[in-house]
């Protein structure tokens, strides 16, 4: 008779300890917050825009007379370097979630968040056209300070949305 009661008391003690231990401190999410987009909006947002100032830049790629400079998570600055003494910031290629690019035969390859896209460009970057899209080929980027696990990202993700950027908290 005493053994089952002891077992019962032991189980209750374990459960009560678990309850008390789980009353922990609030979770800290770090300095960055995720930015999401609906897939259709992300796919249709690729376009050539007027030149923009360089702010949070990433990789640099040289293609002929052009210097392509990545603006992290936003797109690519197109700089005409035909006169190296006075390079001209001539256009901005808007690609959400872009952090890398390469170019060959007037085809620009870039990441559009989790997709790889190929864009046919005109010689002077006056227009671009997405010719190929391979969906879901890249993993979503991690937060720069690595505080956000995919579990917490998913808690905030609107249904079907894609993580395209990490924004530093103001």
């Amino acid at each position, binding site marked *: 008779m005493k053994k089952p009661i002891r077992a019962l008391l032991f*189980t*209750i003690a374990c*459960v009560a300890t678990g309850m008390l231990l789980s009353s922990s401190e609030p979770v800290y999410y770090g300095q960055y*917050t995720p930015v999401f987009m609906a897939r259709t909006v992300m796919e249709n947002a690729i376009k050539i825009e007027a030149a923009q100032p360089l702010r949070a830049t990433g990789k640099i790629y040289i293609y002929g007379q052009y210097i392509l400079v990545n603006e992290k998570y936003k797109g690519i600055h197109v700089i005409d370097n035909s006169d190296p003494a006075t390079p001209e910031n001539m256009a901005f290629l808007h690609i959400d979630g872009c952090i890398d690019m390469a170019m060959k035969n007037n085809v620009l390859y870039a990441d559009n968040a989790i997709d790889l896209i190929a864009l046919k460009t005109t010689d002077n970057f006056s227009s671009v056209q997405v010719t190929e899209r391979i969906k879901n080929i890249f993993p979503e980027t991690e937060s720069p300070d690595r505080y956000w696990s995919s579990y917490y990202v998913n808690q905030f993700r609107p249904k079907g949305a894609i993580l395209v950027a990490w924004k530093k908290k103001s």
Partner: protein
Amino acid sequence: MKKILLIVSIVTFGSCLVFAQEKEILGSRMGIGFVPQYAISGGMRFDIDRSISKISNQWLIISPQVFMVTGGRYGHEFEELTGLGLDIKHKIYLKPNSMKPIGFYAQYGIMFQHFSIIENRQYTESYFENGIEYYEVVEGEVNTKLNKYGGNFHLGYQWLVGDKVYFDIYTGAGIRISHNSQIEGLDTWYNNYWVDYGYSGTLLDAGFRVGFYF
């Protein structure tokens, strides 16, 4: 025919009396109790015990609950949490030749809890930049309604002190399903731990009750 019916009735009634006299019984059919561990979650639970009949080893336990929390709990920082809940259980005492609520028992039941939560926390909000819609995570006051329902199965042991006061310990398993008014599907925000307000899944349940019969 009437004679036969009369004899059968007398025999049945008589045997019931004999049966009743053989069992130890508790005069009280009502009890009221308190479950202290609910204080960990900022709640209070009272148990109203009612025997199914005058002579029965089966009881119905109705457990209304109220919750009120401000401050930190289970990884959340509440401005205010208020809640109401109700458990209904069917409890069967297993002691042979006894109709007293004493000794080992098994119980099963269903539960429902509703929480209203005001919390300064992060949430997702849409915004437009150059005509393109984005969603960002911002911080602000969020009012969330949570509904949690589920069921339990427990095994326990109850002591009686002088046929009036009872001490009861129990453990068992349960299942919870929680929905949050802010998101579709199951709640994920208030689901940090198995004791969290919006937990969904199976759990190991245990507790202690104290109360009295009247």
